[in-house]
């Protein structure tokens, strides 16, 4: 099948990208160093020797490090895949082969996702295995780790899909990277303060005292589903607990009922499928 050839080519071409390799190594080192720092703080005042933090504490660290680095890896992989190849001319040559644009896009997504998943499994999975082997862990540690990796893999797929949409929209590599960074800036940096601002402006009350009733505008749940990072945080909170991140903590404080796990799962699936469908529509209807 032609899409598998495209997927193999994408994987082969990008898995050797020095920047991706470097960020994956940074990923692994950062998680281990953070785990060691958290472990050292935990052992302050006790006679026990300093060790790595437990896997649950390390997952929180991985959530923080991954939350910053994974979208960047997805952006680096995806921003030029259509716009850059369109600009250089290699996309035209590929389209002139006996292959449909849907097959090309699917192949690119699968090939790039394989690289991204490899970075996650080496960076997060590798560091988690080291922690598991060297730190105390709860009986649920392995389940939590697997759940965390599965949700993170899905979230990475959503970011890759979003990046392909941006790459399909722009004609040139330069504008595609600017567009990708703008998407990242809005979703990962601006969204949370904007949400807080809007919630406060809408007169939300925080349940700060026992028995007090929190209140929040009804659209807050919808807003949470409109950002892949918020969906990721929500899914982690629902499935592992205590890892909701800032958005989740904010929501817990002000929202009487959050979206269900099933809603978060559907939202995450939509974050993978909808941008990819949009990328296909743009790719299929634009000149190359």
């Amino acid at each position, binding site marked *: 099948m032609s899409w598998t050839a495209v997927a*193999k080519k994408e994987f082969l071409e990008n898995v050797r990208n020095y920047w991706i390799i470097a960020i994956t190594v940074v990923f692994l080192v950062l998680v281990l160093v953070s785990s060691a720092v958290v472990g050292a703080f935990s052992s302050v005042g006790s006679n026990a020797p300093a060790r790595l933090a437990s896997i649950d504490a390390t997952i929180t660290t991985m959530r923080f490090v991954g939350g910053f680095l994974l979208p960047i890896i997805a952006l680096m992989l995806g921003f030029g895949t259509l716009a850059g190849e369109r600009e250089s001319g290699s996309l035209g040559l590929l*389209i002139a082969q006996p292959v449909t644009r849907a097959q090309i896009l699917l192949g690119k997504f699968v090939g790039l996702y394989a690289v991204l998943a490899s970075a996650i499994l080496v960076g997060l999975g590798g560091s988690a295995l080291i922690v598991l082997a060297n730190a105390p862990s709860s009986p649920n540690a392995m389940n939590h780790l697997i759940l965390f990796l599965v949700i993170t893999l899905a979230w990475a797929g959503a970011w890759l899909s979003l990046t392909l949409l941006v790459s399909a929209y722009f004609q040139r590599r330069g504008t595609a990277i600017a567009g990708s960074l703008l998407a990242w800036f809005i979703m990962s940096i601006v969204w949370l303060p904007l949400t807080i601002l809007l919630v406060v402006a809408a007169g939300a009350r925080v349940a700060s005292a026992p028995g007090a009733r929190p209140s929040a505008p009804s659209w807050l749940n919808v807003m949470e589903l409109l950002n892949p990072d918020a969906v990721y945080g929500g899914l982690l909170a629902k499935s592992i607990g205590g890892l909701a991140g800032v958005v989740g903590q904010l929501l817990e404080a002000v929202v009487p009922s959050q979206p269900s796990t099933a809603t978060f799962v559907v939202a995450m699936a939509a974050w993978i499928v909808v941008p990819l469908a949009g990328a296909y529509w743009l790719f299929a209807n634009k000149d190359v």
Partner: protein
Amino acid sequence: MTGILETEGLVKTYRGVRAVDNVTLSVQKGEIYGFLGPNGAGKTTTLRMLMGLARPDAGQVRVRGVDPLADPAGAHSGLGFLPETLSFYKTLSGRQTLRFFAEVKGLPRERADEALALVGLAEAGDKRVGEYSRGMTQRVGLAQALMGDPEILVLDEPTGGLDPLAHRQVKDLLRDRNRKGTTIIFSSHILTEVQELANRVGMMRKGQLVAQDTVDALRSRIGLKGTLVLTVQNASPSIAVEVQKMPGVDSATLQGDRLSVVCDAALRFDVAKRVEESGGRVLNMETKDASLEDVFVTLAQGGAVR
């Protein structure tokens, strides 16, 4: 539409400028079709629409009766394409690149090695394409187009960036493929190359296909005259003057014993007779037809075909 590659009423506009304006062309099975025109005439845009890379604003494209936008896989199977601007995946080697294209075309990977050898890159096949010279990259491009013995070849400036030796090899290769039944459409700025290779030519000017025929037919339809060169014993200026007076003769110029006469080819025996009548003796007579370059220049400057 009956050709193997056809367009009908093709129109493409970029930012209000008609890059391609109502182009109807037809390439017949088994022929070599040369596509000519000054820079910006619309050749590449037409080829891009033929390949389904650009969507026409109006008109139709058919490759073996198939619309390449509606059924790209069907239209492109058994078709080799070489774009004007070539770019490959810089981290892959030449061999990996061609194996990728072999796989996309549904060919066994051994075809990639054969294609590398065909274009003289067998030894450099494991070097990264990013390290190739422009000529080597062009060879990889040709190799991917020729791989799998396609029924149709669409080549946009196939000899661009090649040295004279490689240039000749490519021409021989294309002739050989055509003898084996491959239909070829190619654009080129090298008019001698087009004249040598093409059975028919299409000439674009300002987005329009202003002529489409064999070179001989175009010469005649444009009304371009050939040059008759006579070697004359006892040549004198008066002979040139007498010849110049003949109806159908545009000019007669004497240089030493060589008399050059621009006239219809059919007049050559009348001219020789007039030279003899004027006191000269014709020792030798050669005719030089108007070249494709003459045709090109005439059409590019606004000349019309009859």
